[in-house]
């Protein structure tokens, strides 16, 4: 009898730090059908485009952020055969070295886990309603959206890698 396809998904928006290893372990615990686990951690850097960053504050649109992330997690599950997906995004004030975002994807094959993790990160960067305000020695200002992030997200919409896989 073939096993039923089940994907464990976890989505959390929180002020608190997360435990990347613990989240990855939670997906694989007690299972022996997973061949690949990709963990992505986004971390607050002390430099951005040459400027020194002392801290950043992440504002988010509560309600919409959860819905937007959930819809992209669902899309990832539709596009790739995943065993588990975890997305955690922090908000509030963070200093360099702090964790910002975590994506964990688990699959039977590594290609699916890698693709889904990159897809989710590209979409979090461009579609999830979060805004970063950076504190530098020159004052504090809102971070501008990066064109490279739009380009990265666009590759999932047609042709590109998806068609080649």
């Amino acid at each position, binding site marked *: 009898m073939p096993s039923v396809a089940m994907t464990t998904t976890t989505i959390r928006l929180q002020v608190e730090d997360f435990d990347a290893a613990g989240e990855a372990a939670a997906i694989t615990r007690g299972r022996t059908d997973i061949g690949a686990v990709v963990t992505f951690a*986004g971390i607050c850097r002390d430099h951005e485009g040459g400027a020194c960053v002392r801290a950043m504050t*992440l*504002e*988010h*649109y509560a*309600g*919409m*952020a959860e*819905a*937007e992330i959930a819809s992209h997690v669902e899309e990832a599950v539709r596009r790739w055969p995943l065993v588990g997906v975890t997305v955690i*995004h922090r908000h509030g004030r963070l200093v360099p070295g702090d964790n*910002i*975002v975590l994506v964990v994807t688990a699959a039977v094959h590594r290609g699916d886990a890698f693709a889904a993790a990159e897809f989710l*990160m590209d979409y*979090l*960067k*461009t*579609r*999830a*309603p*979060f*805004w*970063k*305000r950076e504190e530098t020695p020159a004052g504090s200002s*809102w*971070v*501008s*959206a*990066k064109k490279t*992030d739009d380009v990265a997200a666009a590759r999932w919409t047609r042709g590109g890698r998806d068609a080649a896989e």
Partner: protein
Amino acid sequence: MRILYFAWVRERVGRADEDIDPPRSVTTVLELMDWLAGRGEEYAHAFAGRGTIRAAIDHAHVKADAKIAGAREIAFFPPMTGG
């Protein structure tokens, strides 16, 4: 109709949310931005670059030509920079 503002749109408007009652002639998101921009100096400043401001109706991204009829909550914000 509940309106939310985020990031620099919020800072320029000077508030995070408010309830408004625009005239019936305001039917799209773009028309709503035009109408809001006429409500005072802070709104004019916030919506001056309305080409870059994004909008969401009831938690879903929409374009400037989206109809606002039936919307409970409309949000205005700059391009997202999360992740």
